[in-house]
Structure formats: structure tokens, C-alpha cells
């Protein structure tokens, strides 16, 4: 079952069958799948060839040896929902703004899982493979950043 789109209201409906069951009421939505399907719909004469673009895609970026995750950004006022209730949907894969443009549904919880520090590590040989000491350095740095943010948030709440 494919996504359906109300092109006049710009609402994309993702059927439950296009979500991946993890366990119980926990599902995942691979952002890449969303991007690919959006591109297909945009370019289809039977669907949205005439309509405004749904998503903007920013590919992976390599900065100082770090490969940053791609971004899928829903634009032009499009929103989305699902045809189910009482599910937890965890967005996996690429960073996105899908959480921002989600239309809340009965019992639907969406977990963004974006990370500003998300990196893509190339497996196998080559100069892009980090040494164990480099990995340790990064883990420490990320932990520090998280701790500082957590502390700051708690201070703000108090």
C-alpha cells in the first residue's frame, strides 16, 4: 500500500503497512523510505507532478573527516499522518523534520531521533577508519555535550 496524498490540503497519509513493526505497538519509519516515496509521488503524472515539491533533500556532508547525516526536510506546507491509532513510531535513518510536520493522531507518538552529532562511519579499510583512541575522544565529547545540555535544561526548568 502506498502513501496517499490530499494534494489540495497537502496532507500525506502513511498507511500502517508502510511502517515497520518492531514489537507490540512500536513501529519505525525509515526517513529514507519517506523521501523516496515523496520523490516518486512528486514526479508522477497521476499524482503530484503538477503540485509543489514535498521534500527537500540535503545529502551527507563530510566536514573535517566526519560524514554528517543527510537531511530530509518536508517543505511547502506539507504535513503527514497515519491511518492507525495508538502506535509509537520511531523515525530512523536520516535526520528530518517529520516530527514537526506530523498531524497528531489518536495515541500516536513520534520519536524524532535526530542528532546534530550523528555521523556515518565507513566500515572497512582506508584512511577514513578511525583509530580506537579517536573513537574514545568522540564518545567523551558527545557525552560532555549531552551532560552540559541536560544540566542547562534542568536549570531552566528549576
Amino acid at each position, binding site marked *: 500500500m502506498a502513501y496517499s*496524498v*490530499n*494534494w*489540495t*490540503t497537502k496532507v500525506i497519509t502513511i498507511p500502517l503497512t508502510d511502517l515497520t513493526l518492531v514489537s507490540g505497538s512500536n513501529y519505525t519509519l525509515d526517513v529514507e523510505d519517506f*523521501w*523516496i*516515496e515523496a*520523490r*516518486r*509521488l*512528486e*514526479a*508522477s*503524472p497521476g*499524482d*503530484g*507532478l*503538477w*503540485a*509543489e*515539491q514535498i521534500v527537500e*533533500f540535503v*545529502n551527507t556532508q563530510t566536514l573535517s573527516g566526519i560524514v554528517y547525516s543527510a537531511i530530509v526536510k518536508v517543505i511547502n506546507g506539507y504535513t503527514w499522518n497515519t491511518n492507525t491509532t495508538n502506535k509509537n513510531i520511531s523515525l530512523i535513518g536520516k535526520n528530518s523534520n517529520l516530527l514537526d510536520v506530523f498531524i497528531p493522531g489518536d495515541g500516536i507518538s513520534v520519536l524524532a531521533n535526530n542528532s546534530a552529532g550523528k555521523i556515518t562511519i565507513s566500515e572497512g579499510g582506508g584512511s577514513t577508519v578511525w583509530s580506537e583512541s579517536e573513537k574514545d575522544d568522540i564518545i567523551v565529547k558527545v557525552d560532555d555535550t549531552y551532560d552540559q545540555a541536560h544540566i542547562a535544561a534542568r536549570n531552566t526548568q528549576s
Partner: protein
Amino acid sequence: MTVYDRDYATPADAVTAVLAQFSITAGGDIRHDTGTNTFHVWWLHRALQKKVWDLATSGNDLLNLAKPNPSTSEALGTIITLLDHTTDYTVRYNIDDTAAESFFGGSIEQQNGSSQTERYSGLIVLGTAVAGTQLQVVQDAAVYTSFWGTGLNQTDSNTLLRVLIKTIVAGAEVDKQIVVVKAHEYGDTYAVWETTLGLGEKVAAISTADDPNNNTALGTVQAYTGFAGVGATVEGWTLIDVDGNGGDPFIGDLSYAGLTGNQTKDALYEVVKAYLVRGTTDTLWGIDGDLYTARLYQLTVTPGSGSQLYVQNETVTWAGGGSGTLLAADDLDEDNTTRIVIHLDKGIAPVNTDVVTGATNSANNTVTATEKLATAANYIGVYTGTNWIAAKGTGFLATELIFGDSVTALDGETPSVPQNVTLNLTVNCDASDDPYCFLAEKDGALEAPDYNKYSGETTGSSSSFVDIDTPLDADEPQTGYVGVLHTGRTYFTFYEYSDWNNTENTPNGRFNLVGTTDAIGITAGDDVFIAFFYEALDGTGAVQTLANSFVFDTGTRNFVGWVRHGDPTIPDKPVPIAYNAVGSNSQSLTVVLENES
């Protein structure tokens, strides 16, 4: 070589020169002996009179005072008559064709051995021609053998040629003494002039100049692929819809489509000129190019009976010795024929009550009116390098005409070629891509397509047309896609249309569809707009294209849209496109599709 014109300053020298160049027998035969001088016919008369005044003969001029009067002169020495005294003196003064080549400026008439009149008529060609031009004289549907090269007896700067042409042979006029002078030098403009010769000297006027649009070497043009087919592909009476308002009659429709590798107006123009160049063996509409004289006539005829058929390009004849080549007939069945177009080959054009008869099947019709068409010596007309200014009746393939071309149909209509504006799109992409394009007129305020430019009128389901509640703008594309946001649907549905008009739903617009609408009606007020593009790119491979046209009306318009390729395996980054300030000129756009992953 000396040219002894009528007003040559020293008459005695002219007479002496004539007598030195010709021999004269006792029986009166005047023949060229030696020399290349040329003489006004007056000096022949004066020389003969001089000899019959002398007491003694001299050299090979065997005349003296004992001989009868050799000649008379009229009209200030321009009409010379050589006298026949066969009965009383066994003397018949006469010249032959070779001797005649040495004279100009008037006519020389004589009797042949059967006492039949023969005449050499004077022809003077005035005007200007490109240096090196070899004039042709067509007489009785044949080229008169030239003895004048690039000109002869040019007694002043405006004279191209002065010669004698034999116009009466054995007592009979050759084609009513009509000749056509032609200047058909490749690379120059062409010219023709018809004149009827007779006594004295008659004038033809010729003017040629360098043709700036005829620069390709003749041999190159003659070697074009499809060269011979241009003039033989679509002949005869052809209805051509130039302006989109129905067909008008023309003589065939010339096209460069068959000139593979040279499909241009330039090539077509030069091909037609090559057909008609001096010395050609090619034909146009069945007429040998050398014999094309641009004398086209449109005959109004009364439908006949007998059901005989005319044959395209056949010879037709009529009373008085006239004949022509049938270039077009509105119906080849004599029962239905009302119009015939001929190229006049011989004689004078048929007139009211003349009966024209086809040579093949004897199909015939009676002429009620004759129109001499305003034609061009090169048949095709003026070519500016961009546009045709065609002679009346000259037809072109409608799709090869562009705004600014001027054509005149056989019915006198001068349909205007629409000013088509074409938007061209070229997409560079992966060879396996199959991208799609959408383009529509831009909204007046938004940076987006004008999705609600028009509003629909109530129409039933599965309709072959879409009606709107206002007239369509004159500059909408002739073909394209009309998008309808049906009430009850959340998306535009697009229908390809084959044409539109404001007459079938007058005064409002109607799109006639290639197919039918879906099984859902159109509700009054449904948004309707035109997609200039709404389709896959044409072709396959790394370069794909798309084009569509509209007829320019006024002002400028903006178009916006995009090219998308949503292949699930390798999607491409969508590319917005825009054609801004589109007025009367076509625009082209090239975009590059890049893989997004």
C-alpha cells in the same frame, strides 16, 4: 571587332566594312565571308545600295549597276526588306542565319526560294545584369541557340544585347514571334521578359543582381540528398492551411524536409534556383528549368462532361497553336474541374471560349476567364534570408512557414502565418532516466503556477470536451493539457487536448480532448488551467527534449514549472524551471538532472 551602330560617324567606313565581311553572289546570296564586326541593319541596306550604284563588281561582291534594287529601308533604317527579283532578273537578295548573326538594330525581311516570307527581327535587351551573365532566349518552347555569349552589340551602358532573332520561317511565324529573354545565372537574381518581336527592333528589359542568399556552390546544392525530390514530392492543386483557418489552394507545397542534412529554407531556395539555372536538365513541375518562363495563368473553366482525367504536368493545348503545362487543377476529372493553372509554353494564353485539352486523355474544358499570375522568375519568389515573399500560387509546407513569411494563394487569399512562439526544453540526465516536466503560466502574484486561471462550466462525465466560463486567451498553446480540479477530488486531473476555440462554446472557451474526461462531471467553478508541459520528455538517453508552441498575441508572460525524476532507485533532485517575459520570441532552456543520493 567593331560595332557599327546606326549613327556610326563615318558611313563610308561602315559600308566598306560590310562589303569586306560578306560575299554577295550574282543571284543575291549575301553570306558571311570573314570578320567579326557587327552592323546595324541600316548598313546592310546602305552597302547593297552602294554596290548597285557601282559600275563594276569588286572581289566577291558581284553586284553592280546592272542589278535590280536589292533592298528597301523604312522607319529610319530599322526595317530592311531584301527584294526578290527571281521572276524578272533571277536575283533574290537574301541572307542566311549565319549572316544574320552579324546584324542588329532592326529587322531584315526577305523571301525564300519558295517565295515565302522570312524574317529576322531585332531584339534589344536593356537593363543591367551581373557581369558574365549569359542571356537566354526561349522561343517556341526551345532555347534559341546563343551566339552572343555574355552580350553582344552593347551600344550603350544600358544595353545588354542587340541581335536578330528569326521569327518567320517559310512564311510562318515562329510561335507568333514571341520570345522570352531570361537571365538565370546561379548566384544572381533571376529575370525573365516576354516580348513579341516583329518588324524593326523590340525591347526586352532585364535586371539582375548578386543574390545574397544564393552562395552555396551549384554542385554542392545539386548533390544534396533529396535534391530531385523537392519539385516532385507534392505537385498540383494543394490545399495548405497556413493560418489555421482552413486550407487555401496553392501549386504544390515545397518543403525542405526531404533535404536530409540540409533541412533549411536556405537550402530549399537554392535547390529551386538550381532547378531553373541556365543549362540545367532538372525540371520543376515537369518543366525543364531552361524552358521555365514564369508565365503562369489561372484559368476559370466550365466543368465539362465525359469524365476524362487530366494528368498532372501533362501538356494542354488550345486553338491558335497555344500549349502549356498543366501545373494544377482543382479537380483532375474534367466533369468537376473549375480551375486550371498552366505554365504557358507556346502561343498566347487561352481566353474566354477557348477549349483547353489535355494531351493524355483529351480531357477538356471551356475557359471562361483567364488570370495572369504575378509570378517570379525563380518561381519561389523573394527570400530575405529569413522569410519568403512568395509569388502568387507558390505553396510551402505549412509547418515550415514562420511568422513573417508572405504567401498568396491561388484564390487570392493572403493567409498570415501565425507568430508561433516555441518554448524548448533540453534535459541532460542519466541515459536511463525518464524524467517528467510540468510547466504552466505563472500566477500573477504568487511564485507558483496559476492553478485557477480559468473556471469550468458544468459538463457531464466522460466528455470529449472541457468548457470554461470565459473566452480562452488567444495565446494559449494550440495543444497541451488542461488540468481540472473536479469537485470531490483532491488533485488536478489532466486531459490532453488537440485544439481549443471560443466558437463551439461561444463566446466562451472549449478544449476538445484527445480522449474523454473521467467518469466524473465538471462542476461549474471547478478550477481549470493549462499545463504547457505535463508529460515525459521526448526521446531517451542522456539528452531528452520537449517543445510546445503558442501563437503570440500581445505582451509578455511568465511560465514556471519543474523537471522531476522520481525513480525509487536513483531519484534526481527536482529542478525548478522558468521562462520569463516570454513575448514574441521563442525561448530555450537547458537543465541538468543530478542524482540526489
